[in-house]
């Protein structure tokens, strides 16, 4: 069964993409993920300067998903340039992920990191647990979204995906702002919340940052609704993200309008070969329903409304 897909000119042999911040710290780990079936990979988000991130605990799981407050630990753009080389030799497109405190930092990041190696860039405006970045800095407002997108657009010809927050309200407006700023696609969504889990024995929040973004199954129905709303709002393609654990989750996102899906927390539940597994589940479904390609199901839920 052919399950290849195309997003903003990017050709993927299958619709599964490694989400940013899961594995993706080194070239080798990307290579290992590609070996496990990913159609593309997004690297861990990179900032201008090195960041240690929050102290640990940085991640915990609970009965409905996962929570994290990593705080954008990364070696900074110079180290990243040394780390991410010969990416074109890998069997799948590698997408950069950049963060910044304002449009200027984002612009510098695009200038410094992107040339040469990467196939596209994800611009992250949506982390809910890092002061100075994402939703904590209001980067998810339509105004800031458009401003930052424009700044990055000026510095690169690569496809730009704006990664937005499920807590953007109304999310369609944020997507429109990204489109207006020159984005080639939307990644929906980043973690939600933040949430808090307290250890009742000590009364202490478990995450060192106290709160963290919620990912995994708890996020999935919200992510599917975000994709559905964004599909109605903009023409540029959507990459779904949030709680994809099984093929059926990915299929829901495709039907809601996504052209591909990112997978992060799912690796915890099903191992790094989750990409192979989800692709197999998608193929089996397509065969059973006699679909010939993903275009038969991308946006299907909307087509049924016509």
């Amino acid at each position, binding site marked *: 069964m052919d399950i290849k897909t195309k997003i903003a000119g990017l050709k993927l042999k299958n619709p599964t993409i490694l989400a940013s911040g899961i594995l993706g*710290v*080194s070239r080798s780990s990307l290579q290992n993920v590609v070996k496990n079936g990913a159609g593309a990979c997004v690297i861990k988000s990179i900032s201008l300067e090195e960041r240690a*991130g929050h102290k640990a*605990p*940085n*991640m915990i*799981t609970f*009965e409905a998903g996962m929570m994290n407050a990593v705080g954008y630990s990364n070696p900074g753009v110079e*180290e990243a340039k040394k780390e991410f080389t010969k990416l074109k030799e890998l069997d799948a497109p590698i997408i950069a992920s950049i963060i910044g405190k304002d449009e200027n930092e984002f612009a510098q990041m695009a200038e410094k990191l992107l040339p040469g190696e990467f196939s596209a860039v994800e611009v992250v405006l949506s982390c809910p647990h890092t002061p100075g970045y994402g939703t904590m800095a209001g980067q998810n407002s339509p105004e800031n979204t458009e401003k930052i997108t424009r700044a990055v657009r000026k510095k690169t010809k690569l496809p730009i995906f704006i990664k937005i927050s499920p807590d953007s309200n109304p999310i369609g407006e944020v997507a429109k702002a990204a489109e207006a700023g020159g984005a080639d696609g939307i990644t929906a969504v980043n973690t939600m919340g933040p949430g808090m889990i307290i250890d009742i024995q000590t009364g202490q929040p478990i995450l060192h940052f106290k709160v963290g973004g919620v990912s995994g199954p708890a996020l999935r129905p919200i992510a599917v609704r975000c994709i559905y709303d964004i599909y109605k709002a903009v023409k540029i393609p959507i990459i779904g993200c949030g709680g994809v654990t099984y093929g059926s989750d990915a299929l829901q996102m495709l039907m809601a309008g996504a052209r591909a899906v990112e997978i992060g927390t799912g690796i*915890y539940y099903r191992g790094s070969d989750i990409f192979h597994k989800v692709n197999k589940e998608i193929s089996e479904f397509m065969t059973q329903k006699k679909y010939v390609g993903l275009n038969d199901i991308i946006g299907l839920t909307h087509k049924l409304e016509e």
Partner: protein
Amino acid sequence: MENALGKIEQPISLPIVEIVEETATVKTFFFKKEFDSQPGQFVIMWIPRVDEKPFSVSYDDHGRLGLSIANVGPFTKNLFNKKVGDLVGLRGPYGSWFKLKNNFKRILLVGGGYGVAPLAFLAQRAVKQKITVDFCNGARTKSLLLFKKRLTDYKVNLHISTDDGSDGIKGTVIDATNDCLGKNTYDAVYICGPELMEKKIIDLCAEKNLECRVSIERYMKCGFGICGQCCLDGSGERMCLEGPVVSGKYALKHKEFGAYHRGKSGRKEYYK
């Protein structure tokens, strides 16, 4: 805690039930809880509002877990100020472990620094299995030597080496290991200690093409295969899940092994 979504990775707060001063720099902290871990596996300890760090299991029997910890920095310093009864969080056990085959007759264990801890746990298991155990235990000086009495109680053949000769032979654990490898034949060699020492021992085993297993410590955050902080350059595999215990062959395949490791930000730090 288990559910259909998988193990729930949250620290369980437990009181410290006993603290034993092992050496000038190492204390063992005991907890009352069955973790049924294997030698070489690790747990992650949480001190609320301080940090969370990985430690190999040193003891795990009769529902008692022991962690032998060196005071090296902020987290361990904070821990060393704790008293019996204080609560800390623990989650795990995580990772691969030192396996013993049933047909093993004699094995060599080579430990340095707190690396002696998981190997002592392994020695206990091996002796139970009636395997003859040679244990090369090295330290800079007598006062830093870990588990001399414990290993004697286990009735292993203890080969002590100190740089200053204050106990056992004067020299390094490498010398002691060379002796053993010269005198006896082993079914397998198990190594845990400073990475450069580990590398040297693996090379020795390679010459004699002796099967050996080694524990590779990398920076860990999640411990359950998500964050990618512990991935080795080369295979890109996770030392919290596919490791920390791997074969010597596997270790040598990775140019990173013995050369550098990554810090909290992912930046490379080279071994001197």
